[in-house]
């Protein structure tokens, strides 16, 4: 008995514990409401639907862990989406490997600009990334005033399956592999240290500027992959869609137990939180609710979940920094 309760206690101490419980509850509810959900045909489609949200949450995670925030993740995914389509007909867009690398590099570069603004120029993260949000959103619409399609063939394959593996899984696996590699480097601990207490980390000799700069760059690179997932889902480009991911992604990260004050949480939380939000929305739609009611229930569930999460898990230092 003791061992079991120990295990439960250890589980509850994980930042994403409550989100994981929610995931099980929502998954059961979703499957009851829509038994077809887990059938292979639907599963591929579902994963394609959820991938951009998951990747947006994953891309938001490093900057939040570093004690900041990146509001511009959504429009950055939108930028990749627009670029992937805008040069339609040009042969180089059909080269999968160079283009995929190019998208990740573009994402990383924009992320690095945010990183410089926050870490080197020392602007407040919210303000700096609202600035880049507006610039990116404006540029996206300038580049592509009206939605346009279709997506290059190699991107569309990600909405199907590559061999036996769903394309969306391949895309979502990239940041996971990158994260597992990062965990083996000293950077991983430095990131959590800086997010937890920047002043103490600086005193301990950590190059806090470089740690924060890298966090935003990494988030940007993940957003590059998110842009590919978004293009695969839409199979076209729409400058208006990308920005809508910012707010949901941050909500997903927080729901996944990652503290917006920094230094606590991780990539698993982003995955689980994004899955929670997707399942809530899916459940509400599957029950045939009028789409007008959807935001009301979604907002209520978000707030109630965050409150219960605080009460049940008693995360230390979550939310408002005091």
């Amino acid at each position, binding site marked *: 008995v003791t061992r079991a309760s120990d295990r439960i206690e250890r589980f509850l101490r994980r930042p994403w514990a409550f989100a994981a419980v929610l995931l099980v509850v929502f998954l059961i509810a979703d499957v009851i409401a829509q038994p077809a959900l887990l059938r292979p045909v639907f599963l591929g489609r579902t994963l394609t639907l959820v991938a951009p949200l998951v990747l947006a949450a994953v891309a938001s995670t490093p900057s939040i862990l570093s004690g900041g925030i990146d509001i511009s993740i959504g429009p950055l995914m939108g930028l990749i989406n627009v670029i992937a389509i805008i040069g339609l007909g040009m042969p180089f867009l059909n080269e999968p490997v160079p283009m995929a690398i190019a998208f990740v590099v573009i994402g990383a570069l924009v992320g690095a600009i945010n990183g410089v603004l926050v870490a080197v120029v020392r*602007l407040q993260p919210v303000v*700096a990334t609202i600035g880049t949000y507006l610039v990116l959103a404006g540029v996206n619409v300038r580049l592509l005033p009206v939605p346009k399609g279709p997506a290059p063939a190699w991107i569309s394959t990600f909405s199907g399956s590559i061999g036996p593996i769903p394309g969306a899984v391949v895309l979502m696996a990239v940041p996971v592999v990158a994260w597992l590699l990062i965990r083996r480097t000293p950077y991983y601990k430095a990131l959590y240290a800086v997010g937890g207490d920047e002043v103490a980390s600086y005193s301990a000799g950590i190059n806090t500027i470089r740690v924060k700069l890298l966090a935003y760059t990494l988030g940007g690179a993940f957003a590059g992959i998110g842009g590919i997932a978004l293009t695969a889902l839409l199979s076209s480009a729409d400058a208006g869609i990308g920005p809508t991911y910012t707010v949901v992604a941050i909500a997903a990260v927080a729901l996944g137990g990652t503290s917006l004050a920094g230094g606590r949480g991780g990539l698993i939380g982003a995955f689980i939180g994004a899955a929670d939000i997707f399942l809530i929305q899916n459940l509400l739609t599957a029950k045939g609710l009028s789409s007008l009611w959807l935001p009301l229930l979604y907002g209520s569930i978000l707030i109630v979940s965050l409150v219960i999460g605080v009460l049940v898990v008693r995360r230390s230092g979550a939310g408002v920094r005091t």
Partner: protein
Amino acid sequence: VSERELVTMSGAAVPIASERASLRAVLERVPLLQVVAVIALYVATVVAIPGFGGVPSIKALLVLAAFVGIASVGQTLVALLGGLDLSIPVLIGMSNVAICQLAGGSGWPFYLATVAILLLAALIGGANGFLSKRFGIHPLLVTIGMAAVITGAVRAIAPQGGRATAPAPSFLGDIVSPASSTGPIPIPPLVLLWLLITIGITVMLSRTGYGKRIYATGSNVLAAERARISTLRVWVATFALSSVFAAITGILLAGFTGQGVIFAGDPYLFQTIACVVIGGTSLLGGRGDYVRTVIGALILTELTTLFSGLGFDSPTQEALLGVLILVVVVFYGREEHVRNRI
């Protein structure tokens, strides 16, 4: 307490390293650059746009600035606590629809509809403040959630998915028209109202106990609590005020557009933050005031007027606003280096 604060507290002068540092210290106290920008931008607009200038143009400018200025009251107060209110646009939209539907459609007397809307807004805002402070959830998240709840409620309750079926009460149009005057005073009523609000908020922040509690809570929650300030009450009251001023904006906006739409407030999300930031109030709490935001609103409105006059389309304007925010904060929104915070 940082070393620098200790020096200040012990009464010794804080050493000023260079001329640049002293200039920065002045700019921290007085929004000098911003006032210069307001004048320079006005001159630039007069030069660049033929036909712009004189009293009618200034009146039109002030009316437009008044909307964003009143909407930014809440963002300023909440920023002084170190918070952020993302539900302002939705509260503008909610009251925009409600005033048309209640006063126009259901035949409520205007004042009764206004009181009802403002009470509801205060309740919603109070909930934002309570949930954020009591449970330690970042206000960004609470207000995102609340915004979704209100959007859903308004779209489900109001006819036509969030569009009022009745037009706005016609006298609201007179209040917000740049051409109208307030009795014998040749100033549009909306601008006069904005002036009164500015005086009221400034007095509240600098002269009342509540104002001092806002600054105390925003600078250091722990110290404020040690000083027996109920920081929870401060948060509840401040977020309630934020929602109330957003609702006032929504009601006035109905007079300007003549209709009620839930999406009426959408442009105000980044605009309110921009006004606060351009004015020089820190989003980290404890530093700034509402006069700065008023100047920020003037700068923002002048820029928008100049940009539209020059024929820039709205995505270009959006991108330029982003660049502007970055340039402005590079000038006076930079944080201290970590080594100075030890």
